[in-house]
């Protein structure tokens, strides 16, 4: 879902961007965050809780909570709600607390 009409804001969509989510090709738009593009594509589960592995989705949307942390181009714990989409990004669901390399 993407908001196209809004009483105050106007949305000018950037150019189309290709990225992958767990290896699957996906499309988003320039100027969107990773989490926004995933949400628009119907991906609701971004992470799993650490102890009970319960699904975690789009939540605070301002980089404060840990609900949207994912592995992006090999880097763990990326806050996808405040990270802008770039061409060719490899976005993956993170298992556990992440491993730094």
């Amino acid at each position, binding site marked *: 879902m993407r908001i196209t009409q809004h009483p105050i804001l106007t949305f000018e969509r950037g150019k189309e961007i290709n990225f992958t989510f767990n290896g699957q090709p996906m499309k988003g738009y320039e100027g969107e965050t990773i989490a926004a593009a995933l949400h628009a594509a119907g991906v609701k589960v971004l992470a799993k809780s650490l102890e009970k592995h319960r699904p975690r989705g789009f939540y605070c949307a301002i980089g404060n909570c840990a609900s949207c942390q994912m592995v992006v181009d090999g880097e*763990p*714990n990326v806050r996808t709600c405040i990270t802008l989409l770039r061409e060719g990004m490899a976005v993956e669901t993170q298992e*556990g*607390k992440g*491993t*730094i390399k």
Partner: protein
Amino acid sequence: MKNKADIVIIGAGMSGCSIAYNLAVRGAKNIVVLEKSFICSGSTGACGAGFRMQWGTEMNCRMSKFSTEFFEHANDILEYDGDIELRQSGYLMIADTEKELTQFRKNIEVQHACGIPSRMMSLEEAKELVPHLNTDILSGAAYCQKDGFLNPHKTTDAFYKAAKRLGVEFYTFTEVTGIKVEHGRIVGVETNKGYIETPIVVNAANAWSQGIAKMVGVELPLYSERHQILVTEPVEHMQDPMVMAFNLNLYVQQTPHGSFIMGRSDSGEPRDLRRTSSWHFLEEMAKTIDNVLPLIGKLRVIRQWAGLYNMSPDRQPIYDKVEGVEGFYVAVGFSGHGFMFGPVTGTVMSEMILGMEPTIDASRLKLSRFAEGNLFTEPSVV
């Protein structure tokens, strides 16, 4: 609150709680512990949670071995209903100069004479143990597997609960406002909650101990100094030992939760009772970690905090009965390692107070050593 006690201990951190337990277990009665805030609210609760046996003087080696052996069985000895979270995952001491490496070799000779299983470690082996260690800047390392970590809050809680079961009374949020001395003898303690008559006062207030001593007209040769620590976001387990360096100036451990806790010293820190955090520390700590363990530099900082070292001229504690004020004892000046020496502190002080034969020799740690110029200098402190 009681208005009469046989022994009043001031301060309920690791030292105060251990002294209380050790006195009670040796049969002392009517013990009261006064704490101006909550238990573990001072230096114990802010510390880096490590303990080590890699020291450079025989007395410290023997005392730390005594403490370590106690920690290994503390859950059972103190019949603790929780867990002190002991992890003997080692201390890796790293050197970046030949001088420091030579000191490590000397230290290890002293440690071996005391039966401590430490050893020199090659940089190749150190890199295997801690793959993210920047060995390019190092000259060598020393290691002891039996060193490690324990939870300061839970360890103090274990002593506190054991002491309480033995009848010790703890009064928190009870601040000592004065100590009454008559004809050169302690007769009582004034607090914000009332007066307690007592012939014996034990000053275990560490960073606040100078103020307590002044109440009986004693000037302790100590100053309190801020030291800072930060903690990062958690990641999967990647580091077993504490990595510690004197010259490069850092210590860093990964907690079971996955976060890294790290600290360093700074000669520019204020020498008073401030426990605020500084930007300067954050910057210097980040530079240090980027240099020594670069991968950890990628992690985000969650928060930072500060605690107080109670510094003595030779960076060693003072365990003594103060001359001229009958009944006034001090266990102060821990200079940053009071938590890990807690079991020794309790043992030494309780035997001194009760006039018992000492189980462990701490005779070099008398207050008179400073006036006599007989300092006991430990080469290996951060």
